[in-house]
């Protein structure tokens, strides 16, 4: 069995006085795709955003408990958020390329982290990241065009390329296909399958089929609680909890 990459223990999240997550404990394995499923407002995105501390942006959000990434505590005021986020890439629900050229979009991360010394190095990183994101062949002749001129699916892959350009170990995906058409979705799903070989991926999705297709592990959230987590196959065929059963068979949610 592979090792634990992310280990959450009793994570509580409050938005002001409203509690959004109740004691989430979870073990996310290295180089696997873990899908977080559940009805809207169940806290799956909130949990995802705890992992790279994006919840810091929300002033009223308070996180307690413990999340360890590679055995290092990240829910602490002494955590270096910048280096944490360079280790954990994130892809958002709506493609959000910078309104800059395709090249600059991917080059931004490596440049600010000082990962490159020469222009050639940078080009190398940009090209390889775009290749890994399966976008290079489509855009290689127009790297100077704005990233916002691409189609939705291409934009999302550009965002994936942007995330992997800083060489992260974990990629968080927050409903990456919800704004895309089925063909673009299929391409991204294939890509996720390839990325699994090198990265630990946590994906939030509304589509149970998608979770079944791309993930090895699935966690079911409901009303801020983690109901069940386990092998995807098991969750979708023979869940332990009746709520999970009801959700995946479409009785609610």
């Amino acid at each position, binding site marked *: 069995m592979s090792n634990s990459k992310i280990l959450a223990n009793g994570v509580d999240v409050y938005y002001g006085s409203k509690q959004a997550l109740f004691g989430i404990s979870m073990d996310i394995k290295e180089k696997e795709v873990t899908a977080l499923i559940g009805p809207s407002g169940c806290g799956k995105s909130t949990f995802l955003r705890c992992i*790279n501390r*994006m919840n810091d*942006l929300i*002033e009223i959000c308070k996180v307690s408990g413990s999340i360890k990434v590679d055995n290092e505590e990240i829910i602490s005021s002494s955590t270096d958020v*910048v*280096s944490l*986020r*360079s280790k954990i*890439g*994130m892809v*958002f629900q*709506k493609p*959000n*390329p*910078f*309104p800059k050229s395709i090249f600059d979009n991917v080059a*931004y*991360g490596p440049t*600010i*982290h000082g990962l490159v010394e020469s222009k050639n190095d940078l080009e190398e990183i940009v090209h390889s990241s775009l290749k890994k994101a399966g976008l290079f062949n489509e855009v290689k002749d127009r790297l100077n065009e704005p990233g*916002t001129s691409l189609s939705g699916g291409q934009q999302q892959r550009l*965002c994936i390329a*942007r*995330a992997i*350009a*800083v060489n992260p170990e974990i990629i968080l995906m927050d409903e990456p296909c919800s704004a895309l058409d089925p063909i673009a979705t299929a391409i991204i799903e294939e890509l996720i399958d390839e990325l699994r070989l090198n990265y630990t991926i946590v994906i939030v999705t509304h589509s149970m089929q998608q979770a079944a297709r791309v993930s090895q592990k699935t966690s079911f959230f409901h009303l801020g609680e983690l109901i069940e987590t386990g092998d995807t196959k098991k969750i979708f065929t023979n869940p332990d909890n009746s709520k999970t059963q009801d959700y995946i068979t479409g009785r609610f949610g």
Partner: protein
Amino acid sequence: MNNSVAKEKIVSLRKKRSLEDMRFKYYGFTAMCLSLAVLVFLLYTIFSKGYTAFQKTIVLLEVDYNQEVLKLTPDSSDEEMEKGKFFRVKKQAIENFFPDLSKSDIKLVKKLFSINVDKEIKDYFLDNPEVINTKQQIWVTAHSDVDQLLKGNSRRDVPEDRRKLNDIQLSYVDQLVEENRVKQVFNNFFFTKADSRHPEIAGVAGSFMGSLFTLFTVFILSFPIAIGASVYLEEFAPKNRITELIEVNISNLAAVPSIVFGLLGLGVLLNVFGLPRSTPLVGGSVLALMTLPTIIIACRASLKAVPPSIKEGALAVGATKTQAVFHHVVPLALPGTLTGTIIGLAQALGETAPLIMIGMIAFIPNIPTGLTEPSAALPVQIYLWVESAERGFQEKSAAAIMVILIFLFMMNAIAVFLRNRFERKW
């Protein structure tokens, strides 16, 4: 039965609603027409009163550059020529302006010419020194009274004692017109000279430059401060009571009467810090204080308009907060920020009251060349001219209003251009 009543009610209500719709459309249309009419009337008044200021009256004068009278020789050096007795040449020219003038008539004729004529005679000679000992026909500037008479701005059918020109002078002017020795040309003085006691040689160049230097000061002071303040408030400030208090007070400051800022400038900048009075430096500082709240509010609005997803994207690849803000949010907000700044500058351009308080209302007859030189500003110049009793200044003030309006129009056009050119859509 019940059903049909309900139907009737619905139909009549629908009619009423559509009528209401129509009525409101017409109210709106009427309101727009009214405001347009007022605007057109305003512009018409300004243009019809002011357009004559762009012309000046010149008179043909025969000047005899006699070397005896000038006390010069053809071999005189440039410095000697500078000191030539040109006033004697002018005196002679005026004495011979009409044949057989009596001593009292000469005095009257002299008043038909601008005070600037001495200089014009001299300049003509310095440009063409070879004319020594020849008689030259030169077009020189007429006095404002003649100018106004010929433009039809002052009436000749009022009693003599209520006129600037008496009957004899009027007959001389008529004679000049008959002999084609007087004509109207483009008034270059209006655009090249500063203020003057004499309307015919007063121009807006001085106050225009003053306004330009003032606006420059405003921009240099307010733009960086406004960007800094709004970026801090929008992106970095903790959301607490103090921040809220500051935010509310910025909005309050935007509504403070401008004269209060003038008093502040007088009390603090002039009296405490001892900065030079009547200068664009002080005027600009005061106006910068006045426009800061406006610019900060505009800057914050454009920072707010940048979608948070862009900042999130930058943070997610490991940018620090400062990097995310200055690499992504601020550049995207820049067009809006610049537009807001230009609107603020336009507001500053039209401000009169605070400038009066810090002494920019002084009579400044030369064109300023720096921030610390006394100077006027366009709106104050207009105020000064409107106040003047001389007829010639009336058309000047209308024309100066045109200049300031065109200036404002151009600034707004730049703002619109920047917004359309650089604004991004998401």
